[in-house]
């Protein structure tokens, strides 16, 4: 199972009639069990690319070879829950095969136990995002797509969930694509970090991280982080701001 991406270009025609180039040549490949991380400025075309890779948008120039018939788990950038179905029903509808112990465990990890019977309109944004995560994990995906999965969560929970995601990916050979603005997350989770330019997106750098996730020391992580920061040219690191 392998994902091969070669998007020559993708343009949107806005309702006002203007042409917007969003992707201007992105090519990379991803093997089963690998985690690819996409990092790029806001509005550069990451979500657009994920939609293309998931097969939701056939209107682009280029070629994408996806594992045929693979179960996809997609955490969209917004929760995209069915407002008229309870939290539990939302998860069960996407994953009819998931059994009760599995769901219980997921809800436990994501701290959603008290909210099983809530409707999405009764959740905080962070809770809704966690439901979207539960849904994506419940389908036991072979291809996992995460669009900023840890945004809107507090630091403690985010760090716990990051570890859970890592565990999940390592446990089974899930092919994962992660979009994040958090370089720390990128380095701790990714096997390959793909840096994108501002719109229209091009690949600035494709950095493989060869040390296995579990074995990465703080020093190595800091080194890769500063390497990434350096590549995103002209960008002051967050730590050094103000």
């Amino acid at each position: 199972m392998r994902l091969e991406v070669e998007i020559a270009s993708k343009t949107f025609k806005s309702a006002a009639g203007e042409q917007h180039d969003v992707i201007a040549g992105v090519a990379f490949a991803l093997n089963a069990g690998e985690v690819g991380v996409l990092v790029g400025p806001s509005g550069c075309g990451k979500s657009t690319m994920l939609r293309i890779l998931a097969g939701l948008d056939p209107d682009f120039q280029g070629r994408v070879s996806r594992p045929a018939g693979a179960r996809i788990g997609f955490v969209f950038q917004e929760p995209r829950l069915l407002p008229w179905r309870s939290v539990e029903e939302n998860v069960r509808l996407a994953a009819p095969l998931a059994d009760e112990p599995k769901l219980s465990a997921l809800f436990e990890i994501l701290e959603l136990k008290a909210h099983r019977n809530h409707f999405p309109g009764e959740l905080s944004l962070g809770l809704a995002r966690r439901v979207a995560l539960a849904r994506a994990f419940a389908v036991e995906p072979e291809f996992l797509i995460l669009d900023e999965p840890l945004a809107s969560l507090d630091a403690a929970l985010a760090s716990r969930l990051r570890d859970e995601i890592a565990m999940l990916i390592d446990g089974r050979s899930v092919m994962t694509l992660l979009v994040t603005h958090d370089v720390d997350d990128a380095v701790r989770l990714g096997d390959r970090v793909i840096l994108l330019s501002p719109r229209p997106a091009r690949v600035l750098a494709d950095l493989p991280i060869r040390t296995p996730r579990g074995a990465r020391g703080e020093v190595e992580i800091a080194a890769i982080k500063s390497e990434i920061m350096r590549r995103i040219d002209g960008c002051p690191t967050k730590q050094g701001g103000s």
Partner: protein
Amino acid sequence: MARLLSFAMFVAIWWIASLFAGDAKLPPPPTVLTAMIAEARSGNLFFHLGATLARVTLAFTLAMALGTAIGYLMGRVRLADRLGDPWLILLLNLPALVAIVLAYIWAGLTEVAAIAAIAINKLPTAVVTLREGARALDAALDEMATVFALPRWSRFRHVILPQLSPYIAAAARSGLSLVWKIVLVAELLGRPNGVGFEIGVAFQLFDIPLLLAYSLSFAAVVLLIETLLVQPFEARSSRWRPRAA
């Protein structure tokens, strides 16, 4: 409670109005009630009400089912909309009388002709409403359903239907009222029973109390169905909505 109050108010206003207008212009509630009871006693009321309800049920179901399907298609598929639109406007604006007369001419003075004619009259309004609903469907949820490979039925039931439901409710309520208006014409023109037939008779005799007795009986049946069946169901299925003040 509020419903009862409102109902009492309706009767009161009617009564007062009839006092002012005079019997000939608007019979007071007891007169109409007497007529209603007399018809009920003789069994006529139930016989005609039953006949009409059977026709209404059939035509309504037919038109709603077909209308929902066609409306959904026209809302989703551009080409279907383009092709179907002139037909839709034509059907929408075909007078009930013409449709019914043509149906009777083609299919004879039969039950089938009557029901088909009524259904054809109601169909386009259901299509038009559902088309708007289909156009307003949320693309984001659609993508979600596609990615998670929801089976066709589950997708329809859990993703699409809840979004269409306000449109279906609107089409059903106003559609029922339309069917009811048209069934009367159909019965008037060529059926030997039904409320429309009786109203035709009452009309020929210019018997206003009888006219009102039959009209209100039907309204009462619908009111009952609404209160006991439709509204509890609606309340349940819209629980998810943030409550308004």
